């Protein structure tokens, strides 16, 4: 599903340049649930942003579902993001003036789906995350866990190939974190490929494979026995 070869990325900080990713080789098969771990500054978020086409690599190749991702202009990048990827952010990134249902329906709007169908689909995904009763509520009327569940529903709405989660539990307490992880596990159980960036070992342990990043290089890549989040709730 994801194929990365010799990926480099550096940022210019004034006259210095900061080499963040120093040759990443990495692949993810369909249906995997992978966590990318590392201390802050290890380059894990940069890697996720490149995978999410929110940022561009300096060199190296990236293939997503057989499509080579390179030299994208903004327009095509936007289309690929819409078609292939669903994002879950640490700070939820819901649009504050739209209610839960409209937030979930937004990726569908950019797919050009008509309003009626959009609302039906969005409602179905809200039901899936257990928030059907909260469809008309604005984000600031929801708890952190609920907001993240709306964000997950939104990420799922466009039926993407891969879900990318950047510290999805970073802003939540442990109980809510486990509930959210449980939801992510359930979605993975249905066969969807999911990448989770985290620095919390207990969250990483709930995935099926842990990739450890340090100073811009992968130092460890191991399959683990998944801990079901439900057991910890």
């Amino acid at each position, binding site marked *: 599903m994801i194929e990365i070869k010799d990926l480099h990325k550096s940022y210019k900080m004034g006259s210095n340049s900061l080499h963040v990713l120093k040759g990443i080789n990495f692949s993810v098969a369909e249906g995997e649930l992978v966590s990318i771990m590392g201390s802050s500054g290890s380059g894990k978020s940069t890697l996720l*942003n490149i995978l999410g086409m*929110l940022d561009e690599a300096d060199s190296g190749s990236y293939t997503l579902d057989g499509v080579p991702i390179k030299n994208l202009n903004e327009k095509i990048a936007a289309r690929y993001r819409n*078609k292939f990827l669903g994002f879950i952010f640490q700070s939820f*990134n*819901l649009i504050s003036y739209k209610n839960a249902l*409209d937030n979930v329906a937004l990726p569908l709007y950019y797919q050009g789906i008509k309003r009626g169908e959009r609302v039906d689909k969005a409602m179905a995904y809200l039901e899936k995350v257990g928030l059907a009763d909260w469809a008309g509520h604005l984000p600031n009327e929801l708890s952190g866990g609920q907001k993240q569940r709306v964000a997950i529903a*939104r990420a799922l709405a466009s039926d993407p190939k891969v879900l990318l989660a950047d510290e999805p539990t970073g802003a939540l307490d442990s109980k809510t974190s486990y509930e959210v992880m449980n939801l992510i596990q359930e979605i993975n159980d249905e066969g969807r490929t999911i990448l989770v960036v985290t620095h919390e070992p207990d969250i990483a342990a709930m995935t099926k494979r842990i990739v450890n990043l340090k100073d811009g290089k992968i130092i460890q890549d191991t399959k683990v026995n998944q801990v079901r989040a439900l057991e910890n709730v």
Partner: protein
Amino acid sequence: MFDLERWEEIFDTIRKNKLRTFLTGLSVASGIFILVVLLGIGEGMRNGISQEFERDAANIIYVYTGVTSKEYKGLNPGRRIQMKNEDFDYTALKHQDDLEFRSSIFRIWNGIVNYGKESGSYRVEGVYPDYQFLENSGMIEGRFVNYKDHDNFEKVVVVGNKVRNDLFKDSKDPIGKYVQISGINFKVIGVYTDPGGEREESKVFMPISTAQRVFGGGNNIANMAFTLEPEDNFQAALAASNRFTADVETQLKETHTIAPDDESAVSINNSLENAKRFYDLMDMIKFFFWGVGICTIIAGVVGVSNIMLIIVKERTREIGIRKALGAEPLSIVGMVLHESIFVTAIAGFIGLIASLLLLEFVGPLIETQYIANPAVNFNVALTTVFILVLAGAIAGFFPAWRAARIKPIVALRDE
């Protein structure tokens, strides 16, 4: 533009950001409102001053004489110059092809007019029949004096509307009645009205021949009034009247032995030249109002641009989210512009309609001398709305375009 989904998205945004929308709209609506009201008042002043002008025929030339101020050919200064019938006849004959209307005027002092128990002091003047048109008077009853009255020295008078109301209070029909002027009976043959108002309507006219004979005027006249045949345009008319004025002045000075550079003996009031000054003034006022109006519009555009900048800045994170969810840069620009154009257009029309209603309903109530019937050219007003909308769109485009080009990762980091 006709994408229904886009419209729904825009309405959604507007509905949920009422304050922002209201503030944008307010600056646009007030800008348009002020501009249209200003233009309306400008037009009202123009109308008002034009009305002031309607008192007399617009191109009337008025000749009167005074006292010489210079010694000339052995004659002392301080002589009073008295115009005679010959002066008038000569001028009328010499310029007969150029003149439209002509009249000399004999003024009767102490013009006490009586009818029954009522009496009043009015300006009583002996005039030629043409004087009706020189004064721009309209007859409401009877007729003006004519050449037959003139030739037969008829003792007839035409009274102003105010004179009629003063003297003939109850018996409404004064035609055929006799009034006494200095004890002499005159038959009323007509009542006139004058757009100049009451002051112009409190005069009494009689044939100049009668006036000179009855009131011992000999062949003296007080003034001469002329209008020239109309010309194709204002410049030609002005040139012709200046030529005529100069000629009459030279001729009078020659006849009465006045120094050519003596300015107090003969005065000629050329209303066309006055009119030119008035129209120049009107143009200045118009320019001024347009200047103020355009500045208002510029202020409005700056206001809209400012608000657009803030809106885009405020929405940076939202734009990042939308881009992460698959919004193309053009759709972001489109969304921001669509909203701003829609809001400015609606607000612009609200401002336009409010100001037009104000002019329509309050305008006619304004009763000062110099403002009459303020109104505005609808096309002009509409154009300004479009200019404002366009300017707002252009002003909104650049920040929107910049926002659309920010990498989503940068936009999402924006707090």
